[in-house]
Every structure is written in structure tokens, then in C-alpha cells.
């Protein structure tokens, strides 16, 4: 649980993974809990398969929108190497929830760069608390790869200074508005992510 008055959540991943939607949902939950909220991301060329981050800050009053390096309370990584890339943004007391899925960019497939061999160990070596989440696997089990997002939201919900169910409510509301059965499915994904985070934290 976060202790200071302001909570900094950094979400990271790559274009098209739903990082921004997840951030919107967390922002809604923060507003519902009565916080001042700022959320920032840089779009533009990043949409084309580039690195995407969303900085979410909430508390009594927020000035700067971006989280300085070393100041994030929570890192929510939608991709494994991205988790490693942004780990320095965490406070020493922070927690990282990392999707273990790997997304290989063309610069790696074409042999210009190599993907880190064991990013999880590198993240652990940085000394911060980390919970790996097999969000891709969980989403597949539930029958839809696009549920990764909701699995990760479930995973992070327990690390925030408000009731996890308020995140779930915002999530379900958003998807039910599209189709009621989507609401149900995303709620399942959320619960699976939540359970995975609890199990992962115990294992760590």
C-alpha cells in the first residue's frame, strides 16, 4: 500500500497494447476516490509500435504531470522488456507488476539488437519488489488475448490506495457499455489477474 499523499503509477508497454485505456480506467477510479488526478502520455510516432508510457498521478493536488525517475510507487508493465526499461522509475519501496509476455520488435528480429535473456532476473537484481504476471497465458485461458489489459488491471488493483473493487467497477462499466457480456468477461479477467498477483506476491 502506498503511504505518501501523492500516488504515482507508471504504466508502460508498446503501441496498441491498451496501456492508455488501462490508465484511463485507473484515473476514473482515482477520481471516484476523490483525488485530484493528472494523466499524461506522449502519443505521435509512439503509436507506430514504439514505446508507450502513461504517467498517472493522484492525490490532494497534482502539479507536474510526469513522474520523475525514481518516484513511481507502482510500475505496471504490459511487456517484459518494457518492465526492465522503466524499472528505474520506481521508488526503492515501490512495486512492479510485470506481464511476462515478450513482444519482439523488428530491430530485434532483424538482428540489430538482442532481447534481454532474462529480464525478470534483471528486474529482481535492481532490488525492487516485483510480481511477474502471465497475463498473456491467463487471457488465453479465458479465451481472448485482448483481455491482457483487464488481467493487468486486476493485478495492480491491490497495490493502490483505494478498494480494488472500485477499479473493477470502472472497468466493468466501460465494457458493459459496449456489450453486457464483455463486462462479465473483463470482470473475470480482472479477478484472475488479482488472484495471480496475490499468488505471485506470496511466491516472491
Amino acid at each position, binding site marked *: 500500500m502506498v503511504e505518501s499523499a501523492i500516488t504515482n503509477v507508471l504504466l508502460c508497454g508498446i503501441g496498441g497494447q491498451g496501456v492508455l485505456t488501462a490508465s484511463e480506467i485507473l484515473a476514473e477510479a482515482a477520481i471516484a476516490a476523490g483525488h485530484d488526478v493528472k494523466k499524461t502520455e506522449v502519443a505521435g510516432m509512439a503509436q507506430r509500435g514504439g514505446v508507450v508510457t502513461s504517467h498517472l498521478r493522484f492525490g490532494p493536488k497534482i*502539479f507536474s504531470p510526469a513522474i520523475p525517475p525514481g518516484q513511481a510507487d507502482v510500475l505496471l508493465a504490459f511487456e517484459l522488456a518494457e518492465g526492465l*526499461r522503466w524499472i528505474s522509475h520506481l521508488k526503492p519501496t515501490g512495486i512492479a507488476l510485470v506481464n511476462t509476455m515478450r513482444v*519482439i520488435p523488428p530491430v530485434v528480429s532483424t538482428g540489430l539488437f538482442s532481447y534481454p535473456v532474462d529480464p525478470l532476473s534483471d528486474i529482481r537484481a535492481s532490488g525492487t519488489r516485483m510480481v511477474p504476471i502471465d497475463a498473456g497465458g491467463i487471457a488465453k485461458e479465458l479465451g481472448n488475448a485482448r483481455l491482457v489489459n483487464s488481467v493487468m488491471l486486476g493485478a495492480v488493483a491491490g497495490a493502490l490506495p483505494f478498494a480494488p473493487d472500485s477499479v473493477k467497477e470502472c472497468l466493468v462499466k466501460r465494457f458493459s457499455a459496449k456489450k453486457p457480456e464483455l463486462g462479465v468477461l473483463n470482470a473475470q479477467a480482472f479477478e484472475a489477474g488479482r488472484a495471480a498477483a496475490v499468488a505471485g506476491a506470496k511466491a516472491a
Partner: protein
Amino acid sequence: MKKKALPPAGTRLMMSGNEAVARAAWESGLALASAYPGTPSTEILEELTQYPDLNAQWAVNEKVALEVAIGSAVAGSRSLAAMKQVGVNVAADPLMSQSLAGVVGGLVLVVADDVGLSSSQNEQDTRFWGRFAHIPVMEPADAQEAFEMTKAAFDLSEKFETIVILRLTTRVCHVKSLVTVGERRAPNSEGGFTYDPNRWVLVPSTAKRRLPLQAEREKALKAESENSPLNVVEQGPDKRVGFVTSGPGYLHVKESFPDAPVMKLGLSHPAPFEAIRAFAGTVERLVVVEETEKLLETELKAEGIGCTGKDILPSNGELAPEILIPAIAKFLGESVPVRKLAHDSSLVFPRPPTMCVGCPHLGVYYTLSKLRRQVTISGDIGCYTLGALHPWKALDTTTCMGASLTMALGLDKGRLPKDADKSVVAVIGDSTFLHMGIQGLLNLVYNKGNATVLILDNQTVGMTGGQDHPGTGKDAYGMPAPKVDFIKLIEALGVKPERIHKINPYMMPVLFKTLKEEMAIPEVSVIITDQPCVLIEDHERFAPYTVIEEACTGCGNCLKTGCPAILVRKREKVAKNGKEQELAFVDIDISGCTGCGLCMETCGPDAIKRMVPPAKTPKEAQAHG
């Protein structure tokens, strides 16, 4: 087009700066908005299409956008033009002159500066235009301020009969924060266009008469700025450093130095020098925190107000607490805490932007990369600028919108003996061609240039997320609109009909052959590629391809298309003709594959096959009309 439900007055909701500007403009009684898409400004006009009782338009370029807004404001209506920072260069002509004549209905020019260069060719500071054109500049720090200042800008514009620049930065445009919205004021309905050639017809004698009026207006605006509620002092107990700041710089100062006195400028030009002088007298040292260039600082020094700024802070890129805190500590002679990084993120591979899976530009750049040694390729602004990157590396220049065609003529006529045998190829997108390419092509033909022009018509403004333009047959609302006929237009510009070709870019052998032929002919040729962006509705997906594992020889040819759906399964080093060669055996991500078949065309051993039986291919679809 389906419109969103409008939140009622009094609602407090999360809005980006761009959304807040749109809402506030509507509430201000806006009648007309015109814009050309450009990151980070694009969403302003997109949002405005969601509001009733106003006319929101995509213009073909920023000069056109501003002139349309000027016409509407001269007619008496509240009007808005929106663009990114480099767009103002295009719009500079009307901006500089209309400053003399001014406006009747309020005209707010919203300019979004891409501070930090997420998606631009330069990082110019829009605040200079206020000085250059003698018009006021407002600088909000976040969405709530963007909302309030948009309203204030319309009022100021009408009060002083001048265009007002609302200067945003990326961190205003795209940051979402809480905004309380209000009611709409009725649009202007009294008055109308007044015949007044001594004002509206800017011949030299008129301009000469208007110059002193412009100077008077600026003087009055200075007085306004001294007393503006947008320029405020926030007291603080730690008087070692007082800050003068504007825009997001204010947020970073408050975040970093909560106890410091701050003078915040909302109406930052003309600056309230007397108020700043008085503020300077209350603090030990004055530091100017501005994004990006040394502008206010220079003005303060010229006014005899001692201050520091860019000697200790960077003149480019975004400011942030992690920049301000150590800079001020050093300035005060305090020790600067060294932060130890948990992990060096530069060790992780980069993830540069790529073209999309199945993008119609992939075949074009694959083809160009095969002709690389024989051509100089002048490029333009859009997704296809990515052709400069690995693996294609098939772009030699990019400067600004439309420059591919004009620079092609210069590259042709100004060539030195070394390049005598090279062909010049210009690559430009559909929207960029309509923005500023038509004139360049006309000029290229007129001056008897020798270049092959590729117009990559993907039927949308791709880079900014898929906006419409006169080549798509839809307006800003998605409603049917007259559609330009590229071939007729190009013929009318003087390109010979036999030198104009329309080609499906997924048919690479045809593209290759046509390019080779046209490069050899010493005239202007135009090749239009005609397949849609994969991100728009008109794009059709086909059954995906897969790799027959046993058949793949690891040659890596398919990887040279740059399609992100092609993945390397394993690498092997082998000796071939005494040289070590690396083989890359591939796989295709079938969930991403659009079935375009491009990689299949590059595969010598025929190892790439369509997965599911007989779905039609893009080529077949084309063949069958």
C-alpha cells in the same frame, strides 16, 4: 457521424488540454474552426466535430486554415484555427499581415508546440510569433487553464480586435486532468461584415495607416497584461529564489519548490514588466523558467530586470522537476543529490516507431531499397518518413511538408558530376501532396525537372491517426464531400498522361518495373500507389500467411520488407564461399498478419504460404474489380 453526449454545465470531468480547448471554444460561441492535423494539436478539431451549432473543417494546410478563420472573424463570427508549431510557418503570411487589419469576431489561433519532439522536424518556440506579429500570447499550464484561457482569449481578441495566440505544448495538449465545464454563450449575431477598404484591403497605403494602430494596440495590451488576472503572484516563504514562469513550467516550479514565491504569466506576451519588476524586488534572486527558448529572460534583461534562466536551464526539450531541482541547488551553491539508477535503461534495445503490419508503404520501400544505389530519394512528412529507417534506409532527405517535390527539382538541377547517373525520386503522401505538394509538382513540371514522383495514396492522414482530406471523399464529420481526382489534377499540372501510373503497391514486380522505366525517362513521371492505410475502415484483411518450417532457408529476404509480423525463429551462422553468413529462419505472427502477401513475393524457396484455403488475395480482389 455519431456524436458523444455533451456533459452538462457544472460537470467535472477528465479532459485533455485539446478537449478542454474544444469545449471552451464551443462554450464561447464559436461559429467556425479550421485546422490541419498535426501532433500534438490534432484532437482539437476532432473534438469540435462533436459539438453542435458550429462548423468544424479540415483545411488542406495551415495557411488555408488561418485564412478561413480570418474570413469568418472578419465577417463577425467567433473563429478558431488550430495547428502544430511548424504549421505556423505555413500560416505566417496571413498571420503577419492580418495583424494590421485585425478582426471583428474573436479569432483564437491555437498552436501546439511539440516540446520534446515526439513527432516533429523541429522544436520552434511559438511565443516568438507573438513578438513578430505584435499579437498577444496566452500560455495555459493544464487542461483547466486551457479551458479558462480559451474563453479569455476570445474575449481579449474581441476587446482589442486582434488575433490571439493560445500557445499549448504537448504536456498541455495530451495531459488529462479535471475540468469543470460551463454553459454555452450565444454565438455573435449582431453586426456583420462592414465595408471598410481602409482596413480590409491591405495595400501599402492601408498597411502604412494601420501600423501606428498596431503599435497603439500593443501598448494597450501591455497595460492589460500589467493588470490581467491571468498574471498572478503566488507568495512563498523561501525568498532565496523567486520564479517567473509560464505554461507547464509553472507546474514544475510548484512541484519542485512549494515554498518559493512564483509569478505566473498566463497572458505572457506582452509581458507585465512593471509587475515583474515589483515581484523581483521581493525576492533575492529571480529565475525565469520558460519552455523552450531564452525569450522572456532576454526581454527582462533588456528592461533592466536582473534574472537568470538559460544559463542554468536547458534551451530545448521539456522541463521537469528532475531538471529544475538540481539546477537550482547548484545555482544556490548547495550540494546536488546524486541519484543512483536501479537499472540503466539504455541497456534495453530501442523500440523505434515502425510501419504497421501489412502497411501499403512496405512494398514501396522494399522496392526503393533494391534500387538504392541508382537513386537519390527526397522524402516528405508522414508515416512514410519511416522509410529512412532500418531495414529500408530508402530516404535521403526530409525537411518539411511538400519539400520532397521542390527539393527533387533542386537535387536534379544542382547535381554535381558524381551524381550524374543517379535518378531523383520524390516520395510524398496523399494528404501532404494536397497540403503543399501541388505547387511543388507544378513547379517541377514547369521548370522541366527530371524526377520520378511517388504519391503514396493511402487515403487518409495516417501519422496523426486517420483524418480525412479532399482526397478521401469525406469531410471532418465523416460526411460525403467532393473527392479530388488525383490523375486529372496531375495531368492539369502538366504531367504527360503516359507518364502517370496508378499501381497497387503490393504488386512489387509491377512497381519495380514501372519505377525502373520511369527513372530512365528524363521527364517528370508520377506513380500513384492506391492501397489504403491498414488502420482505416476501407482496409480489408485477408487470410494470414505462414512459414513452412522445412522450406525456409534462412535467407532473411522477407525481413527486408520491414513487416513487424515477421519474426525470427532462430539464427544460425554458416560458412559460405569462405565467408561467415548469418541465417535467420522466420515465422509469421498470424494474429497480426493482414494477408497482404508482400513477404510471400520476396520468398525465393516458396516457404511462405497462405494459411487457410481460398480466401481472395488483395491482387485477386483488385483483378476482379
